[in-house]
């Protein structure tokens, strides 16, 4: 193999890699330019808007339509993410660092929870919130407070639901991490007189910071992106998160409204994209394990 041969191979390799970049990014590029055109049908889909046909109107319309959805999504995703990561860390600690017989059995139940198709639980969950635990009615007195509305009760139900179904994956992520921590270190803490609680608070928790980053990012993306639970538990009401709002933008199978659809898609995806661009490494680590 001589050098020019080698160079040829390297060039080919990079050509393929950049081709793949185009494959993965082109749909986004097309979406972006389309959202800026007055008439998406008038030019090639990937061409940037011509001088006369540039508009920000579609972004404005999409933003107006999705504004409340964005707020709701934020109110939903932030607490649900933090709670599920926190509870997952606790569960993983109780099932990994503290050792007792049968913990693998309990852990298996957690893990199986990751793979449950939500369709197998949808009816009971929607029934539970609608009939047996109508938080909206129970907390009625709260909605009198300024800034709180009745649909915040529905959001609360959705938060609890997401926390419950997020715990398994968070537990798995933290357990993988805690298994790598030195067992002798925990034993040293025990001999130092630390209780299960203080070992967690003073030794394990401070060491979990990198894993919290991974888990929070992964969970935030998952919860922000979800449509199914939002649709079934609250429907397209005042409390609907942005994903529900996005499905109602433009009409689907006609040529009308592609500009606003694309703009809406970007607005809905913006928070996860920002998180992804900033913390892509952690996201990759989260999905790889």
């Amino acid at each position, binding site marked *: 193999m001589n050098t020019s041969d080698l160079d040829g191979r390297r060039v080919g390799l990079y050509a393929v890699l950049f081709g793949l970049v185009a494959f*993965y990014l082109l749909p986004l590029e097309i979406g972006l330019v389309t959202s800026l055109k007055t008439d998406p049908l008038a030019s090639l889909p990937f061409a940037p808007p011509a001088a006369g046909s540039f508009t920000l109107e579609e972004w404005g319309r999409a933003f107006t339509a999705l504004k409340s959805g964005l707020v709701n999504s934020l109110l939903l995703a932030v607490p649900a993410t933090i709670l599920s990561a926190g509870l997952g860390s*606790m569960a993983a600690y109780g099932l990994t660092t*503290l050792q007792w017989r049968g913990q693998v059995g309990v852990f298996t139940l957690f893990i199986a929870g990751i793979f449950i*198709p939500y*369709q*197998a639980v949808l009816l009971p969950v929607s029934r539970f919130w609608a009939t047996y635990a109508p938080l909206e009615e129970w907390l009625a007195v709260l909605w009198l407070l300024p800034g709180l509305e009745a649909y915040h009760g529905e959001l609360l139900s959705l938060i609890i639901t997401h926390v419950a179904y997020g*715990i398994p994956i968070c537990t798995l992520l933290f357990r993988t991490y805690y298994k790598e921590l030195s067992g002798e270190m925990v034993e040293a803490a025990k001999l130092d007189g630390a209780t299960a609680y203080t070992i967690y608070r003073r030794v394990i928790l401070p060491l979990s910071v990198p894993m919290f980053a991974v888990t929070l990012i992964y969970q935030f993306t998952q919860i922000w*992106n979800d449509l199914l639970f939002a649709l079934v538990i609250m429907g397209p009401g005042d409390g609907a998160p942005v994903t529900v709002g996005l499905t109602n933008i433009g009409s689907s199978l006609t040529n009308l409204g592609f500009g606003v659809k694309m703009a809406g898609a970007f607005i809905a995806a913006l928070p*996860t994209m920002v998180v*992804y661009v900033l913390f892509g490494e952690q996201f990759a680590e989260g999905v790889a394990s």
Partner: protein
Amino acid sequence: MIDRIHEAVRARGESEGDGDARTDGGTATVADDDAGSFFGSVSRDFLGSLPFWLPPFALMGFFVYGAIGWNFALSLVNVQQFNQPNYSQLDFDQYLRAFGDPSFISAAQNTAVLLVAFTLACLVVGLLVAILVDRHVRFENTFRTIYLLPMSLSFVVTAQFWLWLYNFDNGLVNVVTQALGLGRYKWISNPELALGAVVFALIWQFSGYAMVVYLAGLRAIPDEHYEAARVDGASTLKMYWRVIVPQLKGATISASVVLMVFALKAFDFLYALAGGFFPPKGTDILSTMMVRQAFSAGNRSYAAAIGIMLFLLAIAIVAPYLTYQYRRGEL
């Protein structure tokens, strides 16, 4: 110093008496007094661990296992939109009904096609891309980040993009096929093409995931294996096929399980594509059919039965995987 330390030790001895009343150590102390010598320490660790895992477990258990049980009960009765379940009469009628229902059969077929085609294609694409990225290229992390980007997007978002890409008049796909002289197609509204179009879009979104898993697997293989294969005179192709790929068995298994689970959750994508409970003709899968029967058609027991069958399908995929992981001591 020693004298002073001894003083401190004495002081500690006295304070320890009070220390027993502390609440956080309370359970452990009780266990110690009650239990026999052998079980003393075992139950101490067990009881100490309860406050940590039991609350999350209870919450998760109620929503996952409790709900599945409830759903199963629901599938054994006949509840339509408004009547209350009558649990005195249980039968498997809803399951029998499914097997006689042509739309269930076709949804099941579509689900199988989606599972197999989507998973296999993602694995193949993911493996090839991972091998390319692993060849010590520059900006490796940037490439990886870009390839994985679609996965961070919501199904709802990617559905919007693909609706436009598959558009009959000016979608990119038709622009390309026309330029190649193949003509235009109604990718989404033609039942013959719709499922393939959906699978392709999902491959775009998730092949990056398979790539990341394979890349982690490739990283775990020591350089010596590549070098040894080279010294043995293997060509690049042979080296990968006979030395490297067999070592990626673990990565392949875990990636396929997760991809299949994604495929089962493709509801969000199809719902957003159609903007409602009726996905494009030819793409109805069990996930969409279940939701439609439950929340649109009002056949709640029928929907529950479909949900249970989906659950069994997931178990059939995941149980061997978990057993495999358990055997390897990775749980």
